[in-house]
């Protein structure tokens, strides 16, 4: 090695090894995330199979406009995230900060729309629990649909909030000029995380909003 990079930790030989290890670690973490959400998807699949009518009914209660707009917003945030990574690789400080900020704004928009949706549903008495009201002979089964709706979107929203925290931290560091073409691993790793959260939503949207539309 000609010189040692300031960001190189003592137990790595060089920056390549450090980058490869960090990326692999992030992927291993994402595997656990796949299976974490996977537990909920398994539950969804079982009850969808058992109670198809109730799931159609429940799905009808959701507002497809909110779901579709949020999908577009999240895809947009994935684009801005990947552009932040792109400019980090080129080492253009202000553009990194700008696109991280754009990602943060889009993520915030998603959460805002989600909050509006939640308050509508809770107001309509669709939050599972003692206050749950739904006028149908299969109300108990519809309640299970809403259990999954709140559990899955809630866990997803929780991941978004964590992501927003990470983005703010990245923005601060990027502003300080910590990332350039030779070292931008954190931007890349948070990018992987953010895209994963996007993928979860890509599956949640059709499973929760689109079934039984016809």
């Amino acid at each position, binding site marked *: *090695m000609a010189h*040692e990079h300031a960001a*190189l*930790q*003592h*137990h790595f*030989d*060089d920056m390549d*090894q450090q980058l*490869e*290890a960090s990326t*692999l*670690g992030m992927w*291993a*973490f994402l*595997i*656990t*995330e796949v*299976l*974490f*959400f*996977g*537990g*909920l998807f*398994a*539950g969804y699949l*079982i*009850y969808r199979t*058992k*109670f198809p009518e109730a799931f159609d009914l429940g799905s009808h209660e959701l507002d497809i406009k909110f779901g579709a707009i949020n999908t577009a917003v999240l895809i947009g945030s994935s684009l801005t995230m990947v552009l932040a990574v792109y400019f980090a690789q080129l080492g253009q400080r202000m553009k990194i900060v700008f696109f991280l900020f754009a990602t943060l704004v889009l993520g915030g928009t998603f959460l805002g729309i989600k909050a509006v949706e939640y308050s509508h549903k809770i107001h309509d008495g669709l*939050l*599972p*629990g*003692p206050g*749950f009201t739904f006028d149908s002979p299969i109300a*108990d*089964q519809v*309640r*299970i649909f809403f*259990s*999954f709706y*709140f*559990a899955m979107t809630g*866990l997803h929203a929780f991941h978004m909030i964590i992501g927003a925290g990470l983005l703010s931290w990245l923005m601060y560091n990027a502003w300080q000029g910590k990332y350039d073409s030779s070292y931008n691993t954190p931007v890349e790793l948070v990018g992987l995380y953010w895209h994963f959260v996007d993928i979860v939503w890509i599956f949640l949207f059709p499973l929760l909003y689109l079934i039984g539309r016809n």
Partner: protein
Amino acid sequence: MSTAVFKPSKSQLADQSDGASNYLNAGFSAKSWLLTVDHKRIAILYLISITLFFFLGGLFAVLIRLELLTPQGDLMQAETYNKMFTMHGIVMIFFFLIPSIPAVLGNFLIPLMIGAKDLAFPRINLLSWYIYSVGGLFTFAAIVFGGVDTGWTFYTPYSSTYSNSNVILVAVGVFITGFSSILTGLNFIVTIHKMRAPGMTWFRLPLFVWAHYATSIIQVLGTPVVTAAIMLIGLERLFGFGIFDPKLGGDPLLFQHLFWFYSHPAVYIMILPGMGVISEVITCFAKKKVFGYSFIAFSSIAIAVLGFLVWGHHMFTSGQSVYTSLVFSILTFLVAVPSAIKVFNWTATLYKGAVSYDAPMLYALGFIGLFTIGGLTGIFLGTLAVDVHVHDTYFVVAHFHYIMVGGAIMAYMAGLHFWWPKITGRLYPEGWARFSALVIFIGFHLTFFPQFIVGYLGMPRRYHVYPEEFQILNVLSTAGATILGVGYLIPLIYFTWSLKSGPKASANPWGAKGLEWEKASSPPSQYNFEKTPVVTEEAYDYEPTIWLK
């Protein structure tokens, strides 16, 4: 990879002035331990924590065995007894067995064995110990506030709807501790992939490292699913979701599927690292190259993968589909194949070796016998028709204690004795160690062998009263447990003694092969090696014994 210049940070440079410095005398303040990122010190933190939990779990076992001394419920009521076996299970499994070998021995040894300065993510390693501790505190709080009575399996709908004990607190504890296990596994996987020294190819890795790689796969793939399941129990208790409540159309079996998707492979989290220890100990004390290296290595991976295809054998009598049960039963037999390969290869390694019977070897030999009994009875239980007969009897209790205590804890003891000189730089008293190995072996059999019989005769598990004809076998079991308890206390005493008063150990007291013995001092220096070692030979390259020359 290059043998890069050794680059300590500023704060670490201060400690380098002392010539004979090692990781133990690199700093004495509480901060130097509690904020350390050195994998060796974190291993010691884990060693202390899991030892505490081991004796806490042991205390519950003592109370269980005392109650079962007589057929009547004269020591405690049914509710109290339910809490005893639940907390024994939860403490022993989530807070002792799962972290035991990986977090203590694996943490300490993997970087040393592959020639690295540390794990790939030292700060995450420290974080995982803190996460473990927080999870432990929640569980401990639940115990103090009156315990939990669901069984360690948290079966729904009892745990989600009906139990009046501290389910939420314990669920939070287990939930949190799961992340510690995930992070440890993640750290090992990346370390083994990316941190190996020059020349340390995959097929030169010690089998201990292969076993931990397989374990880590399970930790990363399985743990999140049980985490999700436990989260759903919490949501169900707090908000009344109804996912597991049959009254509302929910399916309690869904919980069992999610639970066993992790918890069956979790058995291999407990036993695979033990198998890794045994491979190291057997080769060293037979002074012989291991028989069938690649078979043992790949059988670890095979066990990890096959372990995910058999979870339904815990649910044969639960109302699970008969057809699914058939498939799970057949797949269960497959796990026997890689397990048997290991046993055959260990015994073949002993053949014509120069075998010596030091304490680690005694534990290792004990492991092979006990694991074989535990494994074979597992085949009985995996057989659909037989399981219907012995399900939820003491036969099952005996079976999994042969694997977990006879297997995992024997291996942990073997490993602890084997690497004690390396970890502490001190020798333990060999005579006492051999004596306690013998006491544990005898005590173990006396405790659990009668349980096979009493279970086969029909005594169900999880009851505090039983018919009088089972008393003699239960008295034998309690007597054995007493001996076993003494067997575990002796090492606690002489290990503690040896820390101050044991003779100083040389770098390689056993004449063993491996980077941790040949290239690192006892105890190792703060960054493990003076310079990055270069590996030029296969693992276990012992001189052929005299009979083979």
